[in-house]
Protein backbone atom coordinates (compact mmCIF):
# COMPACT_ATOMS: atom_id res chain seq x y z
CA UNK A 1 0.00 0.00 0.00
CA UNK A 2 2.64 2.44 1.08
CA UNK A 3 4.70 1.81 -2.02
CA UNK A 4 1.78 2.40 -4.33
CA UNK A 5 0.95 5.52 -2.46
CA UNK A 6 4.39 6.89 -3.08
CA UNK A 7 4.22 5.92 -6.75
CA UNK A 8 0.98 7.78 -7.27
CA UNK A 9 2.40 10.83 -5.59
CA UNK A 10 5.36 10.85 -7.90
CA UNK A 11 3.02 10.93 -10.86
CA UNK A 12 1.04 13.67 -9.23
CA UNK A 13 4.14 15.81 -8.85
CA UNK A 14 5.22 15.05 -12.40
CA UNK A 15 1.81 16.10 -13.67
CA UNK A 16 2.03 19.40 -11.84
CA UNK A 17 5.54 19.95 -13.18
CA UNK A 18 4.42 19.17 -16.73
CA UNK A 19 1.62 21.66 -16.34
CA UNK A 20 3.95 24.30 -14.88
CA UNK A 21 6.34 23.87 -17.81
CA UNK A 22 3.59 24.39 -20.38
CA UNK A 23 2.14 27.48 -18.69
CA UNK A 24 3.89 29.90 -21.09
CA UNK A 25 2.00 28.31 -23.99
CA UNK A 26 -1.33 28.49 -22.21
CA UNK A 27 -1.47 32.01 -20.76
CA UNK A 28 -3.94 34.31 -22.50
CA UNK A 29 -1.84 37.48 -22.36
CA UNK A 30 1.13 39.40 -20.98
CA UNK A 31 -0.79 40.85 -18.07
CA UNK A 32 -1.93 37.47 -16.85
CA UNK A 33 1.57 36.09 -17.40
CA UNK A 34 2.95 38.86 -15.15
CA UNK A 35 0.50 37.85 -12.44
CA UNK A 36 1.66 34.25 -12.67
CA UNK A 37 5.30 35.27 -12.36
CA UNK A 38 4.47 37.37 -9.32
CA UNK A 39 2.53 34.46 -7.87
CA UNK A 40 5.59 32.23 -8.18
CA UNK A 41 7.65 34.78 -6.25
CA UNK A 42 4.97 35.22 -3.62
CA UNK A 43 4.59 31.45 -3.38
CA UNK A 44 8.30 31.29 -2.50
CA UNK A 45 7.84 33.96 0.14
CA UNK A 46 4.73 32.28 1.55
CA UNK A 47 6.37 28.84 1.58
CA UNK A 48 9.28 30.17 3.59
CA UNK A 49 7.00 32.12 5.93
CA UNK A 50 5.18 28.83 6.44
CA UNK A 51 8.37 27.25 7.79
CA UNK A 52 8.76 29.63 10.71
CA UNK A 53 5.09 30.47 11.23
CA UNK A 54 3.28 27.31 10.19
CA UNK A 55 5.69 24.52 11.05
CA UNK A 56 7.67 26.07 13.88
CA UNK A 57 4.78 28.07 15.31
CA UNK A 58 6.69 31.34 15.67
CA UNK A 59 4.66 34.20 14.22
CA UNK A 60 7.25 36.13 12.25
CA UNK A 61 5.60 39.30 10.99
CA UNK A 62 8.77 40.70 9.44
CA UNK A 63 8.76 38.50 6.38
CA UNK A 64 8.31 41.34 3.90
CA UNK A 65 11.12 43.14 5.71
CA UNK A 66 13.49 40.32 4.77
CA UNK A 67 11.97 40.18 1.28
CA UNK A 68 12.77 43.90 1.08
CA UNK A 69 16.35 43.39 2.29
CA UNK A 70 16.85 40.88 -0.53
CA UNK A 71 15.22 43.22 -3.02
CA UNK A 72 17.28 46.29 -2.05
CA UNK A 73 20.41 44.17 -1.90
CA UNK A 74 20.01 42.94 -5.47
CA UNK A 75 18.70 46.29 -6.72
CA UNK A 76 21.61 48.30 -5.36
CA UNK A 77 24.31 45.76 -6.15
CA UNK A 78 23.26 45.05 -9.72
CA UNK A 79 22.92 48.78 -10.41
CA UNK A 80 26.48 49.15 -9.17
CA UNK A 81 27.51 46.68 -11.85
CA UNK A 82 27.72 43.48 -9.83
CA UNK A 83 26.41 40.36 -11.59
CA UNK A 84 22.89 39.32 -10.60
CA UNK A 85 24.16 35.81 -9.93
CA UNK A 86 26.54 37.13 -7.28
CA UNK A 87 24.21 39.78 -5.89
CA UNK A 88 21.33 37.33 -5.41
CA UNK A 89 22.99 34.84 -3.02
CA UNK A 90 24.78 37.65 -1.18
CA UNK A 91 21.47 39.47 -0.64
CA UNK A 92 19.70 36.30 0.48
CA UNK A 93 22.54 35.58 2.91
CA UNK A 94 22.33 39.14 4.16
CA UNK A 95 18.63 38.67 4.87
CA UNK A 96 19.42 35.40 6.65
CA UNK A 97 22.18 37.05 8.69
CA UNK A 98 20.03 40.00 9.74
CA UNK A 99 17.39 37.44 10.65
CA UNK A 100 19.95 35.75 12.88
CA UNK A 101 20.69 39.06 14.62
CA UNK A 102 16.97 39.67 15.16
CA UNK A 103 16.33 36.08 16.23
CA UNK A 104 19.09 35.88 18.84
CA UNK A 105 17.43 38.23 21.32
CA UNK A 106 13.78 37.60 20.37
CA UNK A 107 13.56 33.82 20.00
CA UNK A 108 14.82 33.14 23.52
CA UNK A 109 11.40 33.84 24.92
CA UNK A 110 8.13 32.06 24.36
CA UNK A 111 4.85 33.69 23.50
CA UNK A 112 3.86 36.83 21.69
CA UNK A 113 7.06 38.78 22.26
CA UNK A 114 8.55 37.43 19.05
CA UNK A 115 5.49 38.41 16.99
CA UNK A 116 5.56 41.96 18.34
CA UNK A 117 9.32 42.33 17.91
CA UNK A 118 9.26 41.08 14.30
CA UNK A 119 6.28 43.31 13.48
CA UNK A 120 8.30 46.29 14.73
CA UNK A 121 11.36 45.19 12.80
CA UNK A 122 9.29 44.88 9.61
CA UNK A 123 8.02 48.43 10.02
CA UNK A 124 11.53 49.70 10.78
CA UNK A 125 12.89 48.17 7.56
CA UNK A 126 10.36 50.04 5.43
CA UNK A 127 10.98 53.27 7.37
CA UNK A 128 14.72 52.95 6.77
CA UNK A 129 14.04 52.22 3.11
CA UNK A 130 12.00 55.44 2.97
CA UNK A 131 14.36 57.73 4.83
CA UNK A 132 17.92 56.66 4.07
CA UNK A 133 17.66 58.62 0.83
CA UNK A 134 21.32 58.52 -0.16
CA UNK A 135 21.33 54.72 -0.18
CA UNK A 136 17.77 53.70 -1.00
CA UNK A 137 16.46 56.65 -2.98
CA UNK A 138 13.84 57.33 -0.30
CA UNK A 139 10.19 57.02 -1.30
CA UNK A 140 10.99 57.07 -5.03
CA UNK A 141 12.96 53.89 -4.41
CA UNK A 142 15.41 52.29 -6.79
CA UNK A 143 14.50 52.30 -10.46
CA UNK A 144 16.12 50.89 -13.58
CA UNK A 145 17.33 47.71 -11.95
CA UNK A 146 18.81 45.51 -14.68
CA UNK A 147 17.28 42.15 -15.57
CA UNK A 148 19.17 39.05 -14.40
CA UNK A 149 22.56 38.86 -16.07
CA UNK A 150 22.36 36.58 -19.17
CA UNK A 151 23.85 33.14 -18.71
CA UNK A 152 26.40 32.38 -21.43
CA UNK A 153 26.23 28.96 -23.11
CA UNK A 154 29.18 27.72 -25.20
CA UNK A 155 27.52 26.91 -28.52
CA UNK A 156 23.97 28.27 -28.56
CA UNK A 157 24.91 31.73 -27.38
CA UNK A 158 23.43 33.01 -24.16
CA UNK A 159 20.25 32.75 -22.16
CA UNK A 160 18.88 36.21 -21.46
CA UNK A 161 15.89 37.12 -19.32
CA UNK A 162 14.16 39.74 -21.40
CA UNK A 163 11.19 37.62 -22.40
CA UNK A 164 8.43 36.78 -19.96
CA UNK A 165 8.86 33.12 -20.83
CA UNK A 166 12.51 33.12 -19.75
CA UNK A 167 11.59 35.06 -16.61
CA UNK A 168 8.85 32.58 -15.84
CA UNK A 169 11.17 29.61 -16.11
CA UNK A 170 13.65 31.40 -13.88
CA UNK A 171 11.13 31.95 -11.08
CA UNK A 172 9.73 28.46 -11.58
CA UNK A 173 13.20 27.00 -11.02
CA UNK A 174 13.61 28.97 -7.81
CA UNK A 175 10.11 28.08 -6.64
CA UNK A 176 10.89 24.40 -7.19
CA UNK A 177 14.17 24.80 -5.31
CA UNK A 178 12.31 26.35 -2.38
CA UNK A 179 9.70 23.61 -2.45
CA UNK A 180 12.39 20.95 -2.60
CA UNK A 181 14.22 22.34 0.43
CA UNK A 182 10.97 22.70 2.39
CA UNK A 183 9.93 19.17 1.47
CA UNK A 184 13.21 17.66 2.60
CA UNK A 185 13.12 19.65 5.83
CA UNK A 186 9.51 18.90 6.69
CA UNK A 187 9.82 15.17 6.12
CA UNK A 188 12.75 14.66 8.45
CA UNK A 189 13.58 14.60 12.13
CA UNK A 190 14.55 18.23 11.69
CA UNK A 191 11.03 19.03 10.50
CA UNK A 192 9.54 17.04 13.36
CA UNK A 193 11.64 19.13 15.75
CA UNK A 194 10.10 22.28 14.28
CA UNK A 195 6.63 20.84 14.75
CA UNK A 196 7.48 19.65 18.25
CA UNK A 197 8.29 23.24 19.22
CA UNK A 198 5.08 24.51 17.69
CA UNK A 199 3.04 21.88 19.48
CA UNK A 200 4.64 21.76 22.93
CA UNK A 201 7.82 23.72 23.45
CA UNK A 202 8.33 22.66 27.06
CA UNK A 203 8.11 18.99 26.10
CA UNK A 204 10.38 19.49 23.10
CA UNK A 205 12.91 20.98 25.49
CA UNK A 206 12.50 18.11 27.94
CA UNK A 207 13.07 15.45 25.28
CA UNK A 208 16.42 16.98 24.41
CA UNK A 209 15.72 19.36 21.56
CA UNK A 210 17.68 22.59 21.74
CA UNK A 211 14.58 24.66 21.10
CA UNK A 212 16.37 27.98 20.85
CA UNK A 213 18.85 26.77 18.23
CA UNK A 214 16.07 25.00 16.34
CA UNK A 215 13.92 28.12 16.22
CA UNK A 216 16.91 30.15 15.06
CA UNK A 217 17.58 27.63 12.28
CA UNK A 218 13.99 27.77 11.08
CA UNK A 219 13.97 31.58 11.17
CA UNK A 220 17.28 31.88 9.32
CA UNK A 221 16.20 29.47 6.54
CA UNK A 222 12.85 31.23 6.21
CA UNK A 223 14.56 34.61 5.89
CA UNK A 224 17.08 33.30 3.39
CA UNK A 225 14.25 32.32 1.06
CA UNK A 226 12.39 35.57 1.75
CA UNK A 227 15.54 37.45 0.70
CA UNK A 228 15.97 35.20 -2.31
CA UNK A 229 12.46 35.84 -3.59
CA UNK A 230 12.86 39.56 -2.91
CA UNK A 231 16.10 39.66 -4.89
CA UNK A 232 14.53 38.00 -7.93
CA UNK A 233 11.55 40.32 -7.62
CA UNK A 234 13.76 43.42 -7.77
CA UNK A 235 15.54 42.25 -10.87
CA UNK A 236 12.43 41.15 -12.76
CA UNK A 237 10.20 44.11 -11.87
CA UNK A 238 13.05 46.60 -12.31
CA UNK A 239 12.02 49.00 -9.57
CA UNK A 240 11.54 48.80 -5.83
CA UNK A 241 10.33 51.17 -3.13
CA UNK A 242 9.62 51.06 0.61
CA UNK A 243 6.32 49.33 -0.18
CA UNK A 244 8.37 46.32 -1.35
CA UNK A 245 9.21 45.78 2.33
CA UNK A 246 5.85 46.87 3.69
CA UNK A 247 4.06 44.88 6.37
CA UNK A 248 1.02 44.97 4.04
CA UNK A 249 2.86 42.43 1.93
CA UNK A 250 3.46 40.27 5.01
CA UNK A 251 -0.25 40.31 5.70
CA UNK A 252 -1.04 39.37 2.10
CA UNK A 253 1.19 36.32 2.48
CA UNK A 254 -0.41 35.55 5.80
CA UNK A 255 -3.79 35.49 4.03
CA UNK A 256 -2.40 33.20 1.30
CA UNK A 257 -1.05 30.95 4.01
CA UNK A 258 -4.20 30.86 6.11
CA UNK A 259 -6.55 30.35 3.16
CA UNK A 260 -4.26 27.93 1.33
CA UNK A 261 -3.35 25.86 4.36
CA UNK A 262 -0.94 26.47 7.24
CA UNK A 263 1.74 23.83 7.80
CA UNK A 264 1.12 22.13 4.47
CA UNK A 265 3.43 22.29 1.49
CA UNK A 266 0.79 22.77 -1.17
CA UNK A 267 -1.28 25.30 0.78
CA UNK A 268 1.05 28.30 0.40
CA UNK A 269 1.40 27.66 -3.34
CA UNK A 270 -2.32 27.27 -3.88
CA UNK A 271 -2.95 30.40 -1.83
CA UNK A 272 -0.35 32.45 -3.69
CA UNK A 273 -1.81 31.50 -7.07
CA UNK A 274 -5.53 31.34 -6.35
CA UNK A 275 -5.98 34.50 -4.34
CA UNK A 276 -4.33 37.04 -6.70
CA UNK A 277 -6.22 35.50 -9.62
CA UNK A 278 -9.44 35.64 -7.62
CA UNK A 279 -8.70 39.25 -6.69
CA UNK A 280 -8.27 40.11 -10.38
CA UNK A 281 -11.55 38.49 -11.32
CA UNK A 282 -13.37 40.24 -8.52
CA UNK A 283 -12.17 43.72 -9.58
CA UNK A 284 -15.78 44.77 -10.20
CA UNK A 285 -16.56 44.42 -6.49
CA UNK A 286 -14.06 47.19 -5.66
CA UNK A 287 -13.59 47.73 -1.91
CA UNK A 288 -16.02 44.96 -1.11
CA UNK A 289 -13.34 42.51 -2.17
CA UNK A 290 -11.52 43.06 1.07
CA UNK A 291 -14.72 42.58 3.02
CA UNK A 292 -15.32 39.29 1.24
CA UNK A 293 -11.79 38.12 1.95
CA UNK A 294 -12.13 39.17 5.56
CA UNK A 295 -15.28 37.10 5.97
CA UNK A 296 -13.74 34.21 4.05
CA UNK A 297 -10.72 34.31 6.35
CA UNK A 298 -12.86 34.15 9.47
CA UNK A 299 -14.93 31.29 8.05
CA UNK A 300 -11.79 29.33 7.15
CA UNK A 301 -10.15 29.91 10.53
CA UNK A 302 -13.28 28.72 12.33
CA UNK A 303 -14.20 25.77 10.14
CA UNK A 304 -10.93 24.63 8.64
CA UNK A 305 -7.87 25.87 10.52
CA UNK A 306 -5.69 24.11 7.97
CA UNK A 307 -7.14 26.18 5.12
CA UNK A 308 -8.16 24.95 1.71
CA UNK A 309 -5.69 22.05 1.92
CA UNK A 310 -7.38 21.01 5.14
CA UNK A 311 -10.72 20.82 3.31
CA UNK A 312 -9.19 18.87 0.42
CA UNK A 313 -7.51 16.49 2.85
CA UNK A 314 -10.65 15.78 4.82
CA UNK A 315 -12.63 15.12 1.62
CA UNK A 316 -9.78 12.91 0.42
CA UNK A 317 -9.64 11.12 3.77
CA UNK A 318 -13.37 10.52 3.78
CA UNK A 319 -13.16 8.92 0.38
CA UNK A 320 -10.37 6.73 1.73
CA UNK A 321 -11.91 6.20 5.16
CA UNK A 322 -11.31 2.46 5.03
CA UNK A 323 -7.59 3.10 5.17
CA UNK A 324 -6.88 4.17 8.75
CA UNK A 325 -3.41 5.42 7.87
CA UNK A 326 -4.73 8.19 5.73
CA UNK A 327 -7.64 8.89 7.95
CA UNK A 328 -5.53 9.46 10.98
CA UNK A 329 -2.48 11.19 9.70
CA UNK A 330 -3.53 14.42 8.07
CA UNK A 331 -0.91 15.88 5.82
CA UNK A 332 1.79 13.44 6.82
CA UNK A 333 -0.14 10.38 5.85
CA UNK A 334 -1.45 12.10 2.75
CA UNK A 335 2.10 12.61 1.63
CA UNK A 336 3.48 9.20 2.49
CA UNK A 337 2.22 6.86 5.14
CA UNK A 338 5.30 4.74 5.71
CA UNK A 339 6.91 5.08 9.13
CA UNK A 340 10.21 6.14 7.66
CA UNK A 341 8.53 8.64 5.41
CA UNK A 342 7.87 11.01 8.24
CA UNK A 343 11.29 10.66 9.76
Amino acid at each position, binding site marked *: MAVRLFFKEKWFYLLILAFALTVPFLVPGRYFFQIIIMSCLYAMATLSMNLILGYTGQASLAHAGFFGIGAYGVGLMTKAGISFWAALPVSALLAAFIGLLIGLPTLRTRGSYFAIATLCFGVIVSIIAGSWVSLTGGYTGVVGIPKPTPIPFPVIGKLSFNSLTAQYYLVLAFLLLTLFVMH*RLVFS*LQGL*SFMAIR*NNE*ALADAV*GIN*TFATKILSFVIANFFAGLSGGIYASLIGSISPSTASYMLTFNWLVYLLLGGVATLSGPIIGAFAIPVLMENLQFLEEYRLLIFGVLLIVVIIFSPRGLMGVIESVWNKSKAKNPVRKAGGE*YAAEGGKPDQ*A*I
Partner: protein
Amino acid sequence: MLLKVENLTKQFEGLVAVSDVSFQVGAGDILAIIGPNGAGKTTVFNLISGILPPTSGKILMQDEDITCLKPYQVAQKGIARTFQTTALFDQLRVLDNLAIGYKLKTTTGFWSTIFRTRGWKEDRDKCTQKVLEVLGFIGLAEKTYSLVSTLSQEEQKRLAIGIALMSDPKIILLDEPTGGLIQEDTDSITALIRKMKKTGITVIIIEHKMRMIMDLADRIVVLNYGEKIADGPPEEVSKDAAVIKAYLGGEYIA
Protein backbone atom coordinates in the same frame (compact mmCIF):
# COMPACT_ATOMS: atom_id res chain seq x y z
CA MET B 1 25.43 5.94 42.78
CA LEU B 2 23.98 7.04 39.49
CA LEU B 3 22.28 10.24 40.59
CA LYS B 4 22.96 12.26 43.70
CA VAL B 5 20.94 15.19 44.94
CA GLU B 6 22.75 17.22 47.58
CA ASN B 7 21.15 19.80 49.88
CA LEU B 8 18.72 20.91 47.22
CA THR B 9 16.68 24.00 48.09
CA LYS B 10 14.16 25.89 45.99
CA GLN B 11 12.52 29.05 47.16
CA PHE B 12 9.62 30.72 45.35
CA GLU B 13 9.50 34.22 46.74
CA GLY B 14 8.30 33.58 50.30
CA LEU B 15 7.61 29.87 49.88
CA VAL B 16 10.27 27.23 50.37
CA ALA B 17 9.04 24.49 48.03
CA VAL B 18 12.08 22.24 48.51
CA SER B 19 14.20 22.58 51.61
CA ASP B 20 17.67 21.08 51.94
CA VAL B 21 16.75 17.74 50.36
CA SER B 22 19.41 15.11 49.70
CA PHE B 23 18.99 11.63 48.30
CA GLN B 24 20.70 9.17 45.99
CA VAL B 25 19.61 6.57 43.55
CA GLY B 26 21.64 3.56 42.52
CA ALA B 27 21.75 2.18 39.01
CA GLY B 28 18.83 -0.13 38.22
CA ASP B 29 16.77 0.87 41.26
CA ILE B 30 13.27 2.20 41.50
CA LEU B 31 13.17 5.17 43.85
CA ALA B 32 9.78 6.52 44.85
CA ILE B 33 9.19 10.07 46.02
CA ILE B 34 5.99 10.39 48.00
CA GLY B 35 4.37 13.06 50.09
CA PRO B 36 1.14 15.02 50.46
CA ASN B 37 -0.06 17.54 47.88
CA GLY B 38 2.24 20.52 47.60
CA ALA B 39 5.09 18.70 49.33
CA GLY B 40 7.52 19.73 46.59
CA LYS B 41 7.79 16.45 44.65
CA THR B 42 7.23 17.90 41.18
CA THR B 43 9.54 20.78 42.05
CA VAL B 44 12.32 18.26 42.76
CA PHE B 45 11.80 16.82 39.26
CA ASN B 46 11.82 20.30 37.75
CA LEU B 47 15.11 21.01 39.50
CA ILE B 48 16.73 17.76 38.36
CA SER B 49 15.57 18.17 34.77
CA GLY B 50 16.78 21.76 34.56
CA ILE B 51 13.39 23.39 34.10
CA LEU B 52 13.94 25.39 37.29
CA PRO B 53 17.30 26.52 38.69
CA PRO B 54 17.78 25.58 42.36
CA THR B 55 18.24 28.30 44.96
CA SER B 56 21.07 26.21 46.36
CA GLY B 57 22.33 22.66 46.32
CA LYS B 58 23.82 20.32 43.77
CA ILE B 59 22.72 17.61 41.38
CA LEU B 60 25.32 15.06 40.30
CA MET B 61 24.83 12.56 37.51
CA GLN B 62 27.56 9.90 37.62
CA ASP B 63 29.59 12.36 39.68
CA GLU B 64 29.25 15.06 37.04
CA ASP B 65 27.71 18.31 38.21
CA ILE B 66 24.58 18.94 36.12
CA THR B 67 23.01 21.54 38.40
CA CYS B 68 23.02 24.45 35.99
CA LEU B 69 22.30 22.66 32.72
CA LYS B 70 19.34 23.48 30.50
CA PRO B 71 16.56 20.89 30.12
CA TYR B 72 17.77 19.70 26.71
CA GLN B 73 21.30 19.29 28.07
CA VAL B 74 20.05 17.30 31.04
CA ALA B 75 18.17 15.06 28.59
CA GLN B 76 21.42 14.57 26.69
CA LYS B 77 23.05 13.35 29.91
CA GLY B 78 20.60 10.46 29.92
CA ILE B 79 17.86 11.77 32.20
CA ALA B 80 14.40 11.59 30.65
CA ARG B 81 11.13 12.59 32.27
CA THR B 82 7.38 12.64 31.98
CA PHE B 83 5.02 15.28 33.31
CA GLN B 84 2.26 15.16 35.91
CA THR B 85 -0.34 16.33 33.39
CA THR B 86 0.38 14.08 30.43
CA ALA B 87 2.45 16.06 27.94
CA LEU B 88 2.44 14.89 24.33
CA PHE B 89 2.65 16.38 20.86
CA ASP B 90 -1.09 16.17 20.38
CA GLN B 91 -1.15 17.53 16.82
CA LEU B 92 0.97 14.65 15.61
CA ARG B 93 0.71 10.91 15.29
CA VAL B 94 2.00 8.32 17.76
CA LEU B 95 4.85 7.55 15.39
CA ASP B 96 5.95 11.18 15.14
CA ASN B 97 5.79 11.64 18.90
CA LEU B 98 8.21 8.79 19.37
CA ALA B 99 10.51 9.91 16.55
CA ILE B 100 10.86 13.34 18.19
CA GLY B 101 12.15 11.58 21.30
CA TYR B 102 15.00 10.20 19.18
CA LYS B 103 16.21 13.59 17.94
CA LEU B 104 18.84 13.98 20.64
CA LYS B 105 20.53 10.76 19.53
CA THR B 106 21.10 12.13 16.04
CA THR B 107 23.78 14.48 14.86
CA THR B 108 22.46 15.36 11.44
CA GLY B 109 21.94 19.02 10.78
CA PHE B 110 20.60 21.19 8.01
CA TRP B 111 22.82 20.13 5.12
CA SER B 112 22.63 16.42 5.72
CA THR B 113 18.85 16.77 5.91
CA ILE B 114 18.70 18.63 2.58
CA PHE B 115 21.05 16.22 0.79
CA ARG B 116 19.82 13.12 2.63
CA THR B 117 23.39 12.02 3.22
CA ARG B 118 24.36 8.53 4.28
CA GLY B 119 24.52 9.73 7.89
CA TRP B 120 20.99 11.09 7.62
CA LYS B 121 19.74 7.79 6.21
CA GLU B 122 21.46 5.84 8.95
CA ASP B 123 19.86 8.06 11.56
CA ARG B 124 16.48 7.61 9.91
CA ASP B 125 16.82 3.84 9.81
CA LYS B 126 18.02 3.63 13.40
CA CYS B 127 15.20 5.90 14.46
CA THR B 128 12.64 3.76 12.63
CA GLN B 129 14.11 0.69 14.29
CA LYS B 130 13.89 2.30 17.72
CA VAL B 131 10.32 3.48 17.07
CA LEU B 132 9.27 -0.08 16.26
CA GLU B 133 11.07 -1.40 19.33
CA VAL B 134 9.49 1.16 21.68
CA LEU B 135 6.05 0.69 20.08
CA GLY B 136 6.31 -2.97 20.94
CA PHE B 137 7.65 -2.26 24.41
CA ILE B 138 4.83 0.11 25.36
CA GLY B 139 2.25 -2.00 23.53
CA LEU B 140 1.04 0.62 21.09
CA ALA B 141 2.02 -1.06 17.83
CA GLU B 142 -1.57 -1.01 16.60
CA LYS B 143 -1.77 2.72 17.12
CA THR B 144 1.35 3.60 15.14
CA TYR B 145 -0.41 5.97 12.77
CA SER B 146 -3.11 7.17 15.12
CA LEU B 147 -3.38 10.78 16.13
CA VAL B 148 -2.63 11.29 19.81
CA SER B 149 -6.09 12.74 20.36
CA THR B 150 -7.68 9.40 19.47
CA LEU B 151 -5.79 7.52 22.22
CA SER B 152 -7.29 6.61 25.58
CA GLN B 153 -5.92 8.26 28.70
CA GLU B 154 -3.94 5.16 29.60
CA GLU B 155 -2.51 4.86 26.10
CA GLN B 156 -1.47 8.49 26.26
CA LYS B 157 0.40 7.85 29.51
CA ARG B 158 2.16 4.89 27.93
CA LEU B 159 3.09 7.02 24.93
CA ALA B 160 4.54 9.70 27.22
CA ILE B 161 6.76 7.02 28.74
CA GLY B 162 7.58 5.77 25.25
CA ILE B 163 8.80 9.21 24.14
CA ALA B 164 11.11 9.27 27.17
CA LEU B 165 12.41 5.78 26.32
CA MET B 166 13.31 6.70 22.74
CA SER B 167 16.62 8.25 23.79
CA ASP B 168 17.77 5.17 25.77
CA PRO B 169 17.92 7.14 29.03
CA LYS B 170 19.85 5.93 32.04
CA ILE B 171 17.28 7.42 34.39
CA ILE B 172 13.64 8.13 33.79
CA LEU B 173 11.65 10.44 36.06
CA LEU B 174 7.94 9.58 36.15
CA ASP B 175 5.62 12.18 37.68
CA GLU B 176 2.45 10.35 38.75
CA PRO B 177 2.36 8.04 35.72
CA THR B 178 -0.93 6.52 36.88
CA GLY B 179 -2.58 9.74 38.04
CA GLY B 180 -6.31 9.68 37.25
CA LEU B 181 -6.33 6.08 36.02
CA ILE B 182 -8.62 3.27 37.20
CA GLN B 183 -7.10 0.27 38.98
CA GLU B 184 -6.86 -1.92 35.88
CA ASP B 185 -4.97 0.75 33.95
CA THR B 186 -2.77 1.45 36.95
CA ASP B 187 -1.75 -2.20 36.92
CA SER B 188 -0.79 -2.11 33.27
CA ILE B 189 1.39 0.98 33.82
CA THR B 190 2.96 -0.69 36.87
CA ALA B 191 3.76 -3.71 34.75
CA LEU B 192 5.37 -1.45 32.20
CA ILE B 193 7.54 0.16 34.88
CA ARG B 194 8.66 -3.27 36.10
CA LYS B 195 9.52 -4.17 32.53
CA MET B 196 11.61 -1.00 32.28
CA LYS B 197 13.49 -1.92 35.43
CA LYS B 198 14.26 -5.33 33.92
CA THR B 199 15.97 -3.66 30.98
CA GLY B 200 18.25 -1.88 33.45
CA ILE B 201 16.71 1.57 33.46
CA THR B 202 16.77 3.46 36.74
CA VAL B 203 13.40 4.91 37.70
CA ILE B 204 12.42 7.74 40.00
CA ILE B 205 8.68 7.79 40.42
CA ILE B 206 6.30 10.19 42.15
CA GLU B 207 3.10 8.49 43.24
CA HIS B 208 0.17 8.86 45.59
CA LYS B 209 -1.01 5.26 45.33
CA MET B 210 0.58 3.69 48.41
CA ARG B 211 -0.22 0.07 47.77
CA MET B 212 1.31 0.26 44.34
CA ILE B 213 4.42 2.12 45.48
CA MET B 214 5.12 -0.16 48.46
CA ASP B 215 5.14 -3.03 46.02
CA LEU B 216 7.16 -1.40 43.30
CA ALA B 217 9.83 0.74 44.93
CA ASP B 218 13.24 -0.40 46.13
CA ARG B 219 13.54 2.74 48.18
CA ILE B 220 11.21 5.55 49.21
CA VAL B 221 11.89 9.21 49.95
CA VAL B 222 9.11 11.01 51.78
CA LEU B 223 8.71 14.77 51.46
CA ASN B 224 6.53 16.97 53.62
CA TYR B 225 6.38 20.77 53.27
CA GLY B 226 9.51 20.63 51.16
CA GLU B 227 11.52 18.69 53.71
CA LYS B 228 12.65 15.10 53.58
CA ILE B 229 11.11 13.33 56.55
CA ALA B 230 12.03 9.75 55.71
CA ASP B 231 14.25 7.78 53.35
CA GLY B 232 14.56 4.01 53.28
CA PRO B 233 13.16 0.71 52.01
CA PRO B 234 9.33 0.46 51.85
CA GLU B 235 8.92 -1.71 54.98
CA GLU B 236 10.87 0.78 57.05
CA VAL B 237 9.20 3.90 55.68
CA SER B 238 5.68 2.52 56.12
CA LYS B 239 6.33 2.07 59.86
CA ASP B 240 7.94 5.49 60.29
CA ALA B 241 6.07 7.58 62.84
CA ALA B 242 6.67 10.91 61.08
CA VAL B 243 5.42 9.48 57.81
CA ILE B 244 2.27 8.08 59.37
CA LYS B 245 1.62 11.44 60.97
CA ALA B 246 2.13 13.32 57.72
CA TYR B 247 -0.40 11.05 56.07
CA LEU B 248 -3.10 11.88 58.64
CA GLY B 249 -3.04 8.82 60.75
CA GLY B 250 -1.68 6.63 58.07
CA GLU B 251 -4.91 5.32 56.61
CA TYR B 252 -3.19 5.41 53.22
CA ILE B 253 -0.55 2.93 54.14
CA ALA B 254 -1.46 -0.68 53.76
